[in-house]
């Protein structure tokens, strides 16, 4: 129930309510599809790549995200001003805000994403868990309902430690904490609630078993809102720091094909049950014993979508726009085949030697790698200032090869070519090289705790110079 526009038309003009590499990614898709693009920008981003390469741009506010990229009124005004008929929210910012999606709908502008109701149900983690349980997705032991302090403590003791406390409205690795023991639990629970209230304005939290060791495996789905749905295989995103991904790859290595196919089918079932539309991701934890558990749904395009694109040959942003403009899927599940292996490394302006703390500053030299089967998604140019207001992603480096061993070798070669120099900006580049060289990663025996293990390893003195 989007609006009265003729739904078989492609959009004429798309506004991108985001910044950085993803805004550029969407601008590029628009250019290729013959759609006019509108970039919106904060004062800080006035000379950004998306602003330069889009057809039009509108200054929507000062650097602070609340007053610019999170300012729904300013973005809708910009859409009205430019006559955009759709808004792509990218990831982060307003991408998973059902109120914003609803406001777009009221303004007669198509929101490129799932319907508001599906977003509300899947966006809140406790209701997503309830839905997953209804359609038979395996869940980790934990709560389906929001809990008070006492009930949460009893539940945590029942399911056994360690447990993880998560904000229902959380995302992007924020608003979650692990309690290792009953002693720790009350404090962890209280703190997570307080954090959730502060970050998301909503202190609903839930508790579930913390699985360790485990792999983070996720399924990319596409649904068209006409009953058509398919999945594009799995991504492994186990290499994380502070619950945020550093390395992603597709397909997920070292897991039985039958398991991945079962996860794919289960995800499609759940997406259809939720009335999902567009591109979405179902996240799971896979245990060494072959069991898997549903974690959450991301109702948007994801940072790591390129690895799926590289192995399937399907442009996910183009499919998002195709579906959002009302078309049925132009692919069948049988037509989706994955070839080879793609790995993505996130080059962040962060200092691995200091807990991956953001390290803003000005990038002096920036010389990304090239060569066969290497893709770099970045908005950075030499002289670019890395602003403290926004996330620290500088570039996504993606390498494809027919098999995993060659993909790793290609990634090592590409990381080695990548030149980033700055007086004060530290990056994750060298740390990513360490991961590529690590036997656990090479043998696909890694888990979500590998980054911690690398950092704690006493043989590993990481004082960067």
């Amino acid at each position, binding site marked *: 129930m989007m609006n009265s526009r003729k739904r078989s038309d492609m959009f004429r003009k798309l506004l991108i309510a985001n910044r950085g590499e993803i805004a550029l990614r969407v601008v590029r898709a628009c250019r290729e599809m013959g759609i006019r693009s*509108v*970039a919106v920008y904060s*004062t*800080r981003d*006035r*000379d950004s790549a998306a*602003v*330069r390469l*889009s*057809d*039009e*741009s*509108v*200054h*929507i*506010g*000062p650097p602070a995200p609340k007053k*610019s990229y999170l*300012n*729904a*009124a*300013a973005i*809708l*005004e*910009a859409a*009205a*001003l*430019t*006559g955009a008929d759709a808004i792509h929210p990218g990831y982060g910012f307003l991408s998973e805000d059902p109120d914003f999606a609803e*406001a777009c709908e009221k303004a007669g502008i198509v929101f490129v994403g799932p319907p508001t109701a599906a977003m509300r149900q899947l966006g809140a983690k406790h209701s997503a868990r309830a839905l997953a349980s209804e359609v038979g997705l395996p869940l980790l032991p934990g709560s389906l309902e929001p809990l008070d302090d006492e009930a949460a403590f009893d539940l945590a003791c029942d399911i056994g430690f360690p447990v993880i406390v998560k904000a229902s409205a959380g995302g992007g690795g924020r608003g979650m904490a692990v309690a290792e023991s009953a002693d720790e639990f009350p404090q962890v629970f209280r703190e997570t609630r307080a954090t959730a209230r502060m970050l998301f304005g909503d202190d609903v939290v839930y508790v579930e078993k913390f699985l360790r060791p485990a792999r983070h495996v996720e399924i990319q789905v596409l649904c068209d809102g006409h009953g058509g749905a398919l999945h594009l295989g799995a991504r492994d995103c186990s290499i994380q720091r502070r619950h945020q991904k550093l390395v992603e790859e597709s397909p997920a290595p070292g897991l039985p094909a039958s398991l991945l196919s079962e996860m794919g089918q289960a995800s499609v079932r759940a997406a259809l049950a939720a009335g999902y539309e567009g591109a979405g991701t179902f996240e799971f934890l896979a245990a060494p014993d072959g069991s898997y558990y549903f974690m959450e749904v991301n109702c948007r395009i994801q940072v790591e979508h390129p690895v799926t694109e590289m192995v399937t040959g399907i442009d996910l942003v183009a499919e998002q726009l195709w579906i959002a403009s009302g078309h049925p899927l132009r692919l069948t599940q049988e037509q989706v085949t994955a070839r080879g292996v793609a790995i993505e490394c996130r080059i962040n302006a962060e200092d691995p030697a200091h807990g991956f703390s953001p390290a*803003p*500053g*000005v990038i002096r030299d920036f010389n990304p790698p090239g060569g066969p089967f290497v893709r770099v998604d970045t908005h950075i140019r030499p*002289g670019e*200032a890395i*602003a*403290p207001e926004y996330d620290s992603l500088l570039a996504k480096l993606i390498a494809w090869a027919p098999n995993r061993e060659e993909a790793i070798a290609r990634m090592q070669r590409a990381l080695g070519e990548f030149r980033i120099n700055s*007086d*004060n900006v530290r990056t994750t580049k060298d740390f990513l090289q360490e991961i590529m060289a690590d036997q656990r990663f090479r043998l696909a025996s890694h888990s979500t705790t590998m980054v911690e293990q690398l950092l704690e390893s006493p043989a590993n003195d990481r004082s960067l110079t």
Partner: protein
Amino acid sequence: MTGRENGQRQQGSRTSMHEATADDQHADRPHPRELAAIRAAVADLLSALPQRPQRLRVSIADVTIDLDWRTLPGPAVPQPAPVVPTPAAVGDGTSGTSTPVTPSVTDPPAPGPDQQPHYVCAPTVGTFYHAPQPGAPSFVETGTAVTAGQQVGIVEAMKLMLPVVSDRAGTVAEILVADGTSVEYGERLIALGPANDEQPQAE
């Protein structure tokens, strides 16, 4: 694209300086390297200006950059045309480029003897109105003396009426944007001349 390049050269320099200093928020005092970068950026800025200002002040915390353009009394020097990007409407559908937009704070004043125009800029994206409602008298006209904090217009964003308030005292030199026009954040709406101190308020 030419308007953007011509009109924004100064702004470009200033922007980079602003960013270099804003990164210092994390440190108590700037690093020598950063100070060197700031000095270099200031030198760049000066070399990019069409005319040498009389005074340039840079303060670090919260970033203030002050340019003093007052010319000394003496023989009239031919002034270059003020570098003021026209607040053009966005999305004319033909340019294929982004619209030049003015920064929200401390615009470079157009040079002129004892003239330091100051601009009241749009607080958000929206529609700019001169008057509280259709048919009502405008908040201000050319020549109106305004005080700091006085409302001089309205920007409507998603049915929300945001007052446009002058951040300093002065005299309205020009209303730059027509009533009912769409504006971007930070777009110049009203040019203010100096307050007329010798002449007490007539009303």
